[in-house]
C-alpha cells in the first residue's frame, strides 16, 4: 500500500499527486503517441474519441463541476463548427485565428444562454438549454448565407501555417494536441479559486454565496468556458466529418454528450475521457459485432449439428440487423450505470485501484456508504 508523504504545500498544488503518478501519465502520453502504430485501421475512430474527449471535458466543467446540466451542448459544437468553417473558407482567415474566433463566438453564445439561465436550477435549466439548442438548429437551417442550409457545407482538410493535416495520422496528432491543451487549461482552473467556486456552487449554492462567491458571475463563467471549449471542439469536428449539415447538431448529439459525462463519472476529468472512449467506440464495436458475432455463434453452435448452427446464425443475424439496436444498447447501459455505479466508469476504476493498493486487507464495505448521488444528478 502506498501512502503519499507530503512535505510541502506545493505537492497539493501540483497537477500530479507524486512522481509515481507523473510517470504513469508520461507512460500514458507515450502510449497515445505510439497508438497509431498499433491500430492504423481505427485511426479515424480514435480521432473521434479525442474530439469527443474535448466535448466531454467541456460538459464536465458545466454538469460535473458546476452542477448545471445542459441538454444543448450540440448547439455550441455547431456554432463552433459553422463559425470556424465560415471564418476559414469564406473570410479566408488563418486556421488558428478561425478556431480561436469560433471558440470565442461559442463562449459568447454561452454567456447569452447563461444569463437568463441563472435564475433557473435543475431540470428547468436543462429544459431552457434544450430549447436553445432547438432554436440554434433552426438558425443553422435558415441562415443559408453562412451555413448553406439543408444543402450542407463541405469542409476542407485543415492547413495550419502551410502544413497540411490531410492524412489521418496528422489529424490524429492535431486532435491529441488540442485535447491535451484543453485538459491542461481545465485542470489549472479546477485547482484555482475559480474551480473551487464552481464545486461550491454545485454542492451548496447558499453556502457558496455566504462565503463570498458571486453566483451569477461564476455560473456565467462556467457557461462561457464550457461553451468556448465546445466551440474549439466544433472546429475539429467540422474537419473530422468533412461536411456540415444542420441535422448533425441534433438533440440526440446533446444527449450523447450528457451520456458521456454520466457514464464516465460526474465530477472528474478522467470520467469525461472514459465516457468519450465509451460513447465514440461503442458504435464501432457494435458494427464490428454486427458483422462477426452471428458467424462465430453459428460456428460454435454448429458443433451441435448443422441445423442448430444455421438456426443460431439466422436468429442472431436477424437480431443484430434490427434498426435501433444501437440506441437500445446505449440506453440499457445508461440505466445499468445509474442503477449500479452512480460514479461511472471512473468510480469503478477508483474501486479497483483501492482494491489493489490495499490488496489483502480490502473491505467490501469501503464504498458502501458512498453510493450517493451528486446534487447535479439529484436535480434540486
Amino acid at each position, binding site marked *: 500500500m502506498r501512502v503519499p508523504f507530503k512535505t510541502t*504545500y*506545493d505537492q497539493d498544488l501540483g497537477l500530479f499527486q507524486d512522481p509515481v503518478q507523473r510517470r504513469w501519465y508520461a507512460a500514458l502520453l507515450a502510449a497515445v503517441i505510439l497508438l497509431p502504430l498499433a491500430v492504423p485501421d481505427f485511426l479515424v475512430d480514435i480521432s473521434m474519441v479525442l474530439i469527443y474527449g474535448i466535448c466531454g471535458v467541456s460538459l464536465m466543467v458545466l454538469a460535473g463541476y458546476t452542477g448545471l446540466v445542459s441538454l444543448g451542448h450540440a448547439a455550441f459544437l455547431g456554432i463552433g463548427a459553422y463559425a470556424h468553417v465560415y471564418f476559414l473558407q469564406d473570410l479566408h482567415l488563418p486556421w488558428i485565428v478561425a478556431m480561436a474566433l469560433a471558440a470565442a463566438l461559442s463562449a459568447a453564445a454561452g454567456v447569452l444562454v447563461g444569463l437568463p439561465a441563472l435564475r433557473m436550477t435543475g431540470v428547468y435549466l436543462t429544459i431552457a438549454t434544450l430549447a436553445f439548442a432547438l432554436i440554434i438548429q433552426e438558425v443553422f437551417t435558415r441562415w443559408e448565407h453562412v451555413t448553406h442550409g439543408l444543402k450542407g457545407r463541405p469542409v476542407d482538410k485543415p492547413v495550419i501555417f502551410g502544413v497540411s493535416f490531410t492524412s489521418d495520422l496528422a489529424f490524429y496528432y492535431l486532435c491529441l494536441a488540442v485535447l491535451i491543451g484543453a485538459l491542461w487549461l481545465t485542470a*489549472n482552473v479546477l485547482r*484555482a479559486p475559480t*474551480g473551487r467556486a464552481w464545486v461550491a456552487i*454545485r454542492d451548496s449554492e*447558499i453556502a457558496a454565496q455566504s462565503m*463570498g462567491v458571486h453566483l451569477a458571475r461564476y455560473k456565467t*463563467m462556467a457557461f462561457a468556458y464550457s461553451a468556448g471549449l465546445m466551440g474549439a471542439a466544433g472546429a475539429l469536428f467540422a474537419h473530422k466529418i468533412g461536411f456540415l449539415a444542420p441535422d448533425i447538431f441534433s438533440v440526440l448529439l446533446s444527449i450523447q454528450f450528457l451520456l458521456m459525462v454520466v457514464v464516465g463519472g460526474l465530477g472528474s476529468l478522467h470520467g469525461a475521457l472514459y465516457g468519450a472512449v465509451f460513447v465514440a467506440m461503442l458504435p464501432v464495436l457494435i458494427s464490428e459485432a454486427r458483422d462477426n458475432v452471428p458467424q462465430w455463434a453459428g460456428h460454435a453452435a454448429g458443433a451441435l449439428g448443422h441445423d442448430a448452427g444455421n438456426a443460431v446464425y439466422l436468429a442472431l443475424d436477424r437480431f443484430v440487423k434490427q434498426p435501433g439496436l444501437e440506441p437500445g444498447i446505449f440506453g440499457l447501459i445508461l440505466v445499468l450505470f445509474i442503477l449500479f455505479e452512480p460514479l461511472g466508469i471512473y468510480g469503478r476504476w477508483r474501486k479497483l485501484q483501492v482494491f489493489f493498493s490495499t490488496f489483502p486487507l480490502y473491505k467490501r464495505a469501503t464504498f458502501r456508504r*458512498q453510493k450517493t448521488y451528486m446534487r447535479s444528478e439529484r436535480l434540486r
Partner: protein
Amino acid sequence: MSFFAADNLGMNFGGIRAVDGVSFAVERGQVFTIIGPNGAGKTTIFNLVSRIYDASGGRLLFRDEDITRVPPHEIARRGIARTFQNIELFEHASVLQNLLLGRHAHARPHLVQELLFLPGVRARERAHREAAEKVIDFLDLQPYRDSLVVNLPYGVRKVVEMGRALCTEPTLLLLDEPSSGLSVEETADMAFWIEDIRTLLGITVLMVEHDMSLVSAVSDRVLALNYGRAIACGSSREVQEHPDVIKAYLGG
C-alpha cells in the same frame, strides 16, 4: 455606536410576520445568543443578516455601515461569516477544499491567469493554504484534512463548517445552533471553542442555540424571541428567569 445592531428589523412572509420589529445591539468581543421556541424567527434573523432574505423593514448596522441592502456575496468580504443549522458543506469536496473555499472572500480570481496557472496564482494559493492550515491547527482537524466531507461523521462536519467560516477571517461570526446533533462531550468541546474564538481570535459571536447549558456557559447577553418579537434581553440568568420566557416555553 455598537459593533453590530438590528434596528426595528422586520420580515414578512405573506401574512406571517416571522420577524416583527426586533432591535438588539451586539458589542465588540461579546458572545450574543438568540433563543426562542421553534418558529420564533431566530434563523430568519440570520438569513436577513447574511442577506439571503430581503428585510421587509428596519435596518442592519455593522461597524456603523448600513448592510441591509448589500448584495449577499459582499457580506463575507465585509467580515461576517456564518454556519448553517443543517450543515451546508460542499459534500463532494475534501475538508481542505472546503476550508480553502472559505478563503474565497480574500481571493482575487482572474480566469486567464488561472487557466495558465501563472506563478502569481501559485503564490496566492500557498498563502491561502497557510491560512487554512492555521484554522486546521486551531480546531484539531488534522486527521480529516484530505477526507471527503460526505464520509465524515456529523460531529466533525459541524466543526469543519465552523472552520470554513473562520477561514474567511470574520470579525462577526454567526453560529446557527452549533450544538444541534452533537453528543454531550462534543457540545462541551464546542463551548471551549466558542470561548477561544472570542478570547484568542477576538471574534464577536452571534449565536442561535437551544442547549441552555451551552448558552449559560458562553453567552454574555441573551435575547429571547417568541413569534418574531423580542420578549426579553439581558444576561443568561435574567432571561431564563423572565416570566414571559418561561411562559413562552412552558405555556400557561
